[in-house]
């Protein structure tokens, strides 16, 4: 049975997380010849990435040859309201096509264009059709492909060394609870196996975090139980910084009915392919919510919007395709104004816009999902949708080129949703899957290089391991509160007080309540034993959720403007001065510290890709003067 024995493993690179980012990082580290471990909380191939639907953005120009990395870069920056780390956005736009093509050599089968290339589809915020996709199960294709690539590497190793696990091994259903440091260097990761509750210690000089997001802290979310912000919290505790934690994306169209599926996503491609949003009066309300910065790109009449689907070159796009934050806010406003559906959402309708066969062909898994989960036939009736917590833009602050975390620790890398900066204040749909591939690869590559560069392996001290064991076992022997109640309370605080629309008073209140919860969580208890005990697992996750929530609340209180995934009712406008600042949180002892850090300035050749009129909406006068000087220089 379970003991306090600790299973020890030695690896060169340990990747925590088996989603798109983690798997891509592991593949790269293995290709660099490193002994690599992949650790995942759930089974292999079940990570959150499977749920991504719409597609992966990459400017391959297969459908519209006007597309290129510069346009993609522009769209990304625009979508993130210019708060993005420009270097990440640049690398992302440049490297995404290669990463997608690479997947084909691993066996991926994307939908095709007539001439046999990868087909691309329209998506909110992208100027051209850009999302490589497979029906509406792109994430599944991505993760399965990477999973199968890993299998193929294992088969190679088996042939060479006689053992599948010789150089790359997957530890499924294993949760990391603590990173072990040697001074300021990463030395290992400590965790438990869910199946039997046994402890494991991975000794490794380089660790890549790819643990995804934090959505489980919210009541209405498209995220699964895995998304408890573990990576964020591990990084904080190891001494790394988080940035932009105030920016959470609320996906505008989550299901709101029936209650059991509340939060589950209705993919954006429903709108990209012609679905429209209507309120309870049957009106297409999005035309009333086009903000000034987007006025030029979006249609003003229904007729023009409808023409766009067939003739995008000569018409402007329908306002349903505005970036997610805008749509989410619009829906929120409609519901508040009393024009919502009975379940508190609005209607998303494709049934009147396309013949049933087209809908089934284009949106097979949506059709399937609604039919089976909600007993709604989307070819006949409208869906009821509303905003749902979907993605965290913020995350571990990393060096754009290498994915190394910035802060007090070396040897720690981060990629995917857990890292921050790439998406600025708001992520465009489809940019995440490509982000996973681009930065996953980079993190794997540089983690391998870092492991090589070390003269000696860092050492794991037994004392730290013992502390980690005690912390992990504590909830089992305590007599305290039920973790499920605590989780519900936390979700209530975050959902009600740090939700889509935020106010100073509520945020302050939230901080007080989070402090109370912190004390309660310190005393949480789990009944039962160590074998596959979800209560115990949740009890251990709670502390991560809490510290990450605190970062979000603190940063949200600090940022006194509205931008992307952060809307303050008391500061409804975007403020160019705030654009120049990132909010950075770090941990000292138990305390969350908040500091401000300037946003890196774009290189001249990148900033000149933009229109002055557009920039003037985002930049301060001082910055604009700088831009004018550049423009003048260029024209001379």
């Amino acid at each position: 049975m379970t003991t306090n024995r600790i299973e020890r493993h030695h690896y060169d690179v340990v990747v925590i997380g088996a989603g798109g980012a983690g798997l891509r990082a592991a593949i790269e580290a293995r290709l660099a010849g490193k002994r690599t471990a992949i650790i995942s909380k759930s089974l292999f191939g079940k990570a959150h990435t499977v749920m991504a639907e719409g597609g992966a953005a990459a400017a391959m120009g297969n459908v519209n040859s006007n597309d290129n990395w510069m346009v993609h870069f522009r769209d990304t920056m625009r979508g993130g309201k210019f708060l993005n780390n420009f270097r990440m956005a640049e690398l992302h736009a440049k490297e995404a096509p290669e990463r997608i093509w690479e997947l084909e050599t691993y066996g991926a089968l994307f939908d095709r264009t007539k001439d046999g290339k990868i087909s691309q589809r329209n998506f909110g915020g992208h100027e051209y059709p850009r999302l490589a996709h497979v029906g509406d199960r792109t994430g599944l294709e991505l993760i399965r492909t990477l999973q199968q690539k890993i299998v193929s590497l294992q088969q190679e190793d088996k042939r060479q060394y006689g053992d599948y696990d010789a150089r790359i091994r997957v530890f499924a259903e294993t949760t990391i609870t603590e990173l072990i440091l040697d001074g300021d260097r990463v030395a290992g990761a400590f965790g438990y196996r869910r199946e039997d509750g046994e402890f494991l210690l991975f000794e490794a000089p380089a660790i890549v975090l790819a643990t995804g997001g934090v959505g489980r802290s919210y009541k209405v979310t498209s995220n699964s139980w895995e998304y408890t912000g573990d990576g964020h919290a591990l990084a904080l505790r190891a001494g790394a910084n988080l940035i932009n934690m105030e920016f959470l994306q609320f996906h505008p169209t989550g299901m709101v009915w029936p209650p059991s599926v509340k939060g589950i996503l209705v993919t954006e491609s429903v709108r990209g392919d012609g679905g429209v949003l209507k309120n309870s009066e049957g009106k297409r309300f999005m035309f009333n919510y086009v903000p000034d910065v987007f006025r030029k790109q979006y249609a003003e009449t229904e007729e023009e919007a409808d023409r766009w689907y067939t003739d995008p070159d000569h018409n402007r796009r329908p306002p349903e395709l505005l970036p997610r934050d805008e749509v989410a806010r619009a829906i929120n406003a409609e519901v508040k104004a009393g024009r919502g559906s009975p379940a508190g959402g609005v209607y998303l309708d494709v049934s009147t816009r396309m013949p049933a066969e087209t809908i089934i062909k284009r949106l097979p898994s949506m059709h399937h999902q609604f039919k089976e989960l909600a007993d709604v036939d989307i070819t006949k009736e409208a869906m009821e949708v509303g905003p749902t917590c979907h993605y965290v833009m913020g995350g571990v602050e990393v060096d754009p080129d290498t994915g190394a975390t910035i802060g007090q620790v070396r040897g720690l890398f981060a990629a995917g949703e857990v890292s921050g900066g790439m998406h600025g204040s708001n992520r465009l749909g489809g940019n995440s899957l490509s982000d996973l591939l681009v930065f996953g690869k980079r993190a794997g590559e540089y983690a391998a290089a870092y492991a090589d560069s070390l003269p000696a392996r860092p050492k794991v001290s037994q004392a730290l391991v013992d502390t980690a064991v005690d912390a992990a076992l504590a909830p089992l022997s305590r007599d305290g509160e039920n973790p499920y109640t605590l989780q519900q309370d936390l979700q209530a605080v975050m959902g009600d007080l740090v939700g889509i629309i935020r106010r100073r008073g509520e945020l302050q209140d939230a901080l007080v309540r989070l402090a109370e919860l912190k004390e309660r969580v310190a005393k949480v208890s789990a009944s039962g034993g160590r074998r596959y005990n979800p209560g115990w697992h949740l009890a251990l996750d709670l502390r991560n959720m809490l510290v990450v929530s605190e970062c979000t609340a603190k940063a949200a209180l600090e940022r006194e403007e509205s931008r992307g995934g952060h809307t303050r009712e008391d500061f409804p406008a975007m403020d160019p001065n705030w654009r120049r600042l990132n909010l950075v949180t770090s941990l000292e002892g138990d305390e969350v510290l908040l500091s401000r850090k300037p946003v890196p300035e774009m290189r001249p050749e990148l900033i000149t890709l933009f229109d002055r009129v557009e920039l003037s909406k985002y930049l301060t006068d001082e910055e604009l003067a700088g831009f004018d000087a550049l423009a003048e220089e260029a024209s001379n």
Partner: protein
Amino acid sequence: MGTKRHFRVWRGDENGGDLQDYQVEVNEGEVVLDVIHRLQATQAPDLACRWNCKAGKCGSCSMEINGRPRLGCMTRMSTFEENETVTVTPLRTFPIVRDLVTDVEFNYVKARETPAFAPPADLEPGEYRMQQVDVERSQEFRKCIECFLCQNVCHVVRDHEENKRAFSGPRYFIRAAELDMHPLDAKGDRKEYAQAQQGLGYCNITKCCTEVCPEHIKITDNAIIPMKERVVDRRYDPIVKLGRRIFRRDQLEEQGTRPGPLLAQEPSHHAEPGADGVKWNRQVAQGQAAAVDENGRLPLSEFTFDRAAAPSPFGDDVTFPLPPDDLNYHHSNKWDT
């Protein structure tokens, strides 16, 4: 609002267990997984159950509900009668871990044994061109969410533990079919592999896998039967053999590739020869299939055996002559030293 419903949930581990009764509240529009979660939050905090997406996309929440293999998150409570008892048990085919969680390692082992996609040697990333009609068949199989319900329901292993060694199960038949139908896969022996290594012959096409597949993949009609037919092409069909002889340019032999690698698990490319010219790191073709019966004997009569002529002592997968590229032997270029 909610009504009380009667649930029976199997609780236990490898030392035994039984069905336990619970009265639990159920609200309109809920699915079985919601009820399991409510049990966890109220009456049984340590009730073990897997789940991730709650939207039928990840294939984690496989369980048996009233004896039928289902996804917990896709089984609406409204499909049961008001007063019906709902019985929830773990998958029966795999070793039990605890409560509703089973050890599905079997599937990952089989996945690892199935030869991976072999990229065409002459195409760089970005140069792949495929027509939609050509990828559609394989795309159907790639919808698989790996819930392993088909693996669980298949009587070949469900009722016969001893077959687990020889039988990969429907999930991996569709994987083999997917690759065999992949327009650019460069490996030619997928059908032979399916027959000889995956145990395609064990399947008696009773279609339970198709019945339970939550993705509605037509596993039997579109993968297993076509694979069986492809095996027939190779082994039995006289007309196909004749046609192959007459029209040398046949699509059946995979597009312009050399004959399939020696062993089914063999690499499609080999590591470079070592300094002495000998490829030490490659595996020698070993008598692999050893098509023996349970008593370890080669069947004597053709009649009782699945192919014409006596089986090769080198196994099913080795054809002679071996391509020289694949030999370990290296001809010395030093003269008489």
